[in-house]
């Protein structure tokens, strides 16, 4: 599904040049669950942003589902992203002014799905993550674990081929964290490719493969049994 080759990303300010990704190459197959680990500043988040089509590399190749997307413009990236990718963030990133239902509905609105179809799919997915009973509540009224469940629901409501998770349990206690990881695993078993950035060895064990990064490059790749 994903093939990156010699990917480079450099951040430049007036005085400092930081090489975030240094000719990075790897690939991810359909249905894989990959964890990306490494110390702070190693380039994991930069990698995730590029994989999520939120940012573009300075050089290198990025083939997504057979299409070279490395130098797509913002509109094309947005279009590809909304149809194929779901995001789960460490800080949930729900919109405070919208209810649980409305937050989860948002990707479908941007896809142009009609109202009754949206209702059906949102309720289905809320049910799946067991948060349906709070669908009219606002994020501020939910616990951290509940918010992350809503975020997961939002990420999957458009049936993405790929889910990108950036430290999904970083703001959760262990019990809630396990719940979220369990959900991700179930999604993966159903066929969704997952790439997860994490500091947690415990969470990484839910994946099939761990890629470790340092200074913008892969250092090791471990396949888990």
């Amino acid at each position, binding site marked *: 599904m994903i093939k990156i080759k010699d990917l480079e990303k450099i951040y430049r300010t007036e005085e400092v040049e930081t090489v975030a990704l240094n000719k990075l190459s790897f690939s991810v197959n359909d249905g894989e669950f990959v964890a990306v680990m490494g110390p702070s500043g190693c380039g994991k988040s930069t990698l995730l942003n590029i994989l999520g089509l939120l940012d573009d590399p300075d050089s290198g190749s990025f083939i997504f589902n057979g299409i070279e997307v490395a130098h797509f413009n913002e509109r094309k990236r947005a279009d590809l992203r909304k149809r194929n990718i779901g*995001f789960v963030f460490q800080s949930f990133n729900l919109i405070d002014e919208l209810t649980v239902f409305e937050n989860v509905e948002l*990707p479908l609105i*941007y896809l142009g799905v009609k109202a009754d179809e949206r209702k059906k799919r949102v309720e289905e997915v809320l049910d799946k993550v067991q948060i349906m009973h709070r669908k009219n509540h606002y994020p501020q009224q939910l616990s951290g674990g509940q918010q992350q469940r809503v975020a997961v629901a939002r990420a999957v409501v458009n049936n993405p081929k790929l889910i990108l998770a950036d430290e999904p349990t970083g703001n959760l206690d262990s019990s809630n964290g396990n719940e979220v990881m369990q959900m991700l695993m179930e999604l993966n078993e159903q066929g969704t490719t997952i790439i997860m950035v994490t500091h947690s060895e415990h969470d990484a064990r839910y994946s099939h493969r761990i890629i470790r990064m340092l200074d913008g490059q892969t250092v090791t790749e471990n396949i888990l049994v």
Partner: protein
Amino acid sequence: MFKNYLKTTFRSLWKNKGYSFLNIFGLSIGIACAALIFLWVENELTWNHSFSNRDNLYLVKDQQAYDGTIFTFDATPGVLAPSVKAEIPGIKRTTRSTWGNPELFSLGDKAIYESGNYVDSSFLKMFQLQFLEGNAANAFTQLYSLVISEKMAKKFFQSTDVIGKTLKMNNQRDYVISGVIKDLPENVSFKFDWLAPFQIFLNQNDWLQKWGNNGIITYVETEPNANIAAINKKLYGYVQTKEKGANAKLSIYPMNRWRMYNSFDNNGKEREGQLKFVNLFSLIAWIILIIACINFMNLSTARSEQRAREVGVRKVLGAGKNKLVAQFIGEALFLALLATFFAVLIIYISLPAFNSLVEKQLSLDIFNPLHLGGLLLIALLCGLIAGSYPAFYLSSFNPVKVLKGLKIQSGGSAGFIRKGLVVLQFAVSIILIISTVIIYRQIQHVKGRDLGYNRDGLIYTTLTGKMKENFGVIKNDLMQTGLVQNATLSSQSVLQLGNNTGDFTWPGKDPNKQLLITVDNVSPEFIPTTGMQLKAGRNFYEDIKTDSSNVIINESLAKSIGNKNIIGSIIQRHNEKGELYNMTIIGVIKNFIYNDMYAPAAPLILFSDTSYVNYLTLRLKPNADMKPVMAKIESIVKSDNPGYPVEFNFVDTDFNQLFKTEALIGELASVFAILAIFISCLGLFGLAAYTAERRTKEIGIRKVLGASAKGLAGLLSKDFLKLVTISCFIALPLAWWIMYSWLETFAYRIKIDWIIFLVAAILAIVIALLTVSFQAIKAAIANPVESLRSE
């Protein structure tokens, strides 16, 4: 999608109630002010629009050249109207009209002065007056008939069903009411409550038959598609074909220009009349709207950090930049609509006060498509203007950065624009403050001008009944009260003298040069009553007959004559037979100011002659309590002249009325200055709060390291004060230039004092300081533990 945006908008507004209030309130005030001004503008621009035939209606203008100056009058010969109708092709109808005289009408015990005109019957048709009773065709069949307004009918009869009833005019003769017309709206060039046949006036004034005498107004209705240039070509030398030596050059002036223009310079060239105020006030309306929009922009972008995360998330979920721009502009439009709704409420509440200020009867009718359309247009413009910058700014956020929680840089171009907008707001406010002060000072300067006589304690009334004949008795009775120092008769009031002629000549006068000289017929007490000063010679003798061939002139005329031995010299004019006759100059008075309070005194000549006088003027002895004095005087005059209600006017009150327009501009400038400052402060308040919030962590750290509350308050206020100081540097030269140009239009004017600028600048800085200090002090005394923990 739209529902989603609407929900977000509502909830975001509710979440930030304070800022939402500042935003909406500031915009509502701006929209309300602009709308009130535009209502005034609408009233002015639709002046005379109730006359559907106005494209074919004209006023005859009479231009006369004297001594290098072209004077433009509305006074025309009494024989002009029928003559041009018969002789000039393209003219369909003409009518004559007098100037609008108050006459006494009585019915039983009721006696009231009403203003009206003597007009030809064609007037009724030309101006398509709407008859509630009677009709235009038959209204003037009888000579002593009267067409009255609805208002006048109700005043006397409490009904409009009054055809055939009579009213006595001036206690002399009954007039039969032959028609009742609907009251004209306020925004028309005519103010009459009665109309009577012009023939009556013609019968009483033989001089109207002469081509050389200009004394009444002539209106012309042209055929549709008439060649106006051809008509004017024929009119230009028309009077000269009837009377060889006549000075008047005629032309027709369109009704559509009577309000906005109808002002002429010394070269006879048309210039802006009311239009300059329409333009000025429209400009002010737009400026206030822009200030309000600037507020909106500033507050929206300042609060952008709160929306940053939402923008990031929406972008991640697939919203393109265009969708986000549309969302935020939609929000701005919604806010603008909400603000417009509140503005409408503000307008309804403030309309009575505004109407009283501008002396009109303006009203807002939201069912009037023009008004509704106008309000929606203002809302749309405000929403688009105010919303566009924040929309583009917000939608350009990088989702990667905002979702990471990185602070949006408030410096760079966004901060620069925000600061620029604050500078602009305050610059406009400072200019308005300075303008207010200078306008006020100019008015006070002119009001304080020495008019050449003492206007305090000088009162006058129009002569009625037998006041002229009984003047001696009236004067004695008044002086015996001990309340009156002196009394005099004159043909015109001391402030407005409209009779003039170029007919005078004197030995040594250049026959090619004509001088327009104002003429006043007075009783001998005129100079001592008014308090004018004789610079040379003597006053008129008490016995009028003794001075029947003597005149007194003013300094301006004496200068024009240029004779060192002016007293005793001869001045001449033509009599009715066309023969030159001599008069002797027996005195020269110090110039007194009349008509144009800003101009130097025009040449003037006084005759001791009470044959044609219209005013009784009294010099009162100084007295603290005017009310009983006036009551006593009025009762004496009434008893000596029974049957006529008496009303005296104070010359100094009338004098103040002459500056009505300038005073109105001054008042409006001060209101707008206050509003502009208020709206700017609203914005500054919001920005200061935002800045304090942004720097919470920094303030917490500084406090921990030992900074005092005073020092911190100063730190936070410093940046804003810098901005206001920059505003001063921009505003002061601009204000100087604007005011200098305005003052140049007055011959009599103040010099601009630099103190005004200093005071305005200090005032602006103090106001800004007070506005931001609340937020600055609040932030400075906050507990640093809280500020650091929240980060």
